[in-house]
């Protein structure tokens, strides 16, 4: 064990962890909106809208995240027509390709989590709102969404942790995130065990923080 290498690589890896957190937070925020949008579509009675939303979540939950990144990064980069459009400004950058893949992936899972949360809301609660003369819109935003979010907290916490670990795939498209920098250090020192232990420790620490924040929120918004 090369303890000196472990200590020396810690600051570099912590710096890289900031990139990882950036990737995670940006894709989670975009993914949450995508997820909410598709969850609402899933609740729609129109069969085409419903099937469309189901198809999206089916495709993105049914294929590996790595494949999704490669299709968006290397695949779309091969289409000559696309390179002449304004879209290329975004798709040219590895960072945005990764964000798009992560957001679409987490959006698919989030839509499923939110859909099931909406469906567990007891009809009585909505009827109570109606009997008080509250409009459908207000019931949706002030009653259904808050309850659904509370219901989905435990599952969504899991999704955040899974996504956090998923961001390590950003290193496959040249992004120097935590895993990318760890691999870079290994490529010059040839000592994978030491460096990956430190990198793994940082991932574990981030999981610990996320886990506790979710637990705190669960308690704070507990129904009891």
């Amino acid at each position: 064990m090369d303890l000196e290498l472990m200590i020396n690589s810690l600051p570099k890896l912590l710096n890289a962890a900031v990139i990882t957190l950036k990737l995670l937070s940006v894709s989670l925020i975009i993914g949450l909106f995508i997820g909410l949008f598709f969850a609402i579509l899933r609740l729609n009675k129109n069969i085409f809208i419903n099937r469309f939303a189901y198809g999206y979540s089916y495709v993105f939950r049914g294929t590996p995240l790595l494949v999704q990144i490669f299709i968006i990064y290397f695949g779309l980069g091969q289409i000559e027509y696309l390179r002449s459009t304004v879209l290329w400004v975004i798709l040219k950058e590895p960072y945005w390709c990764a964000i798009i893949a992560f957001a679409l992936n987490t959006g698919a899972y989030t839509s499923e989590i939110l859909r099931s949360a909406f469906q567990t809301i007891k009809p009585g609660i909505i009827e109570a709102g109606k009997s008080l003369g509250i409009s459908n819109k207000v019931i949706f935003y002030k009653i259904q969404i808050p309850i659904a979010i509370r219901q989905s907290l435990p599952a969504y916490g899991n999704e955040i942790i899974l996504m956090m670990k998923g961001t390590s795939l950003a290193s496959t498209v040249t992004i120097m995130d935590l895993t990318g920098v760890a691999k870079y250090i290994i490529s010059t020192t040839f000592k994978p065990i030491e460096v990956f232990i430190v990198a793994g420790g940082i991932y574990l620490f981030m999981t610990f923080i996320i886990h506790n924040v979710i637990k705190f929120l669960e308690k704070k918004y507990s129904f009891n």
Partner: protein
Amino acid sequence: MMNIFKKTIFSVLFSLLIIGNVNADKIKIGTEGAYPPWNSKDASGKLIGFEVELAYTLCRYIGQQCEIVEQDWDGMIPALIMRKFDAIMAGMSITAERQKAISFSQGYADEVASLAVMKGSDLEGMDTPEGINLTLGGSGVKKTLKTLTGALAGKTVCTQTATIHQNFLESGDVGKINLRTYKTQDEVNLDLASGRCDVALAAAVAFTDYAEKSGKPVVLVGPTFSGGAFGNGVGVGIRKDDTELLKAFNKAIEKARKNGDISRIATKWFGFDASM
């Protein structure tokens, strides 16, 4: 019932023992299989290339059976150290940095590195000599590096990770550039063609091979590079404590060179004699 169970376990263990012994006599050689013409794979997934053919030739001279195994480039040296295989033949240049971790046989081949761009790039027609040797140095080399520093400023330069090419680009010889590193040379080629990379650096032959096979208008620009960060030719990488195997490979390379095997195989795969 118990008896059958015992017998099964015994025979499985016994066969494992035999398999283990057979493998112990074979020299395992690690290669990347993604760096043509040095080493690559054919359509059926079989490893082919200059080093694959050379490896079997060298093993014949050593008088031992060989098995060639595939390993991702960025984990090549760690995998050797962790005994996943006994030798590296993967277009790996002999550099001082790598020699801190492993030993190298004498070089068996060498070829120059070059920058490449897509046709129509403003880097075409750079005013530089045909080739520079960084070990020799001198005013000519300095002037060329200065020209390159100016030309590469603000450009996205792409290369494979953990290579001599990355070492050179990070050495500061061409100033501060926007460097992007990829896991394989294939991915570098793809992003050069897509326009994500303004310019790429690799073995010159890696680009000409790609241009020929893909039909993409990839052109070499600037000088060819050798010496300095580019190392002293390509050799067989071997664990430091494996001195017997190192000796055996050195002897085999000498014999193969004398008999003209290396230059024959090199000419077949490179189109020119890259042996040394």
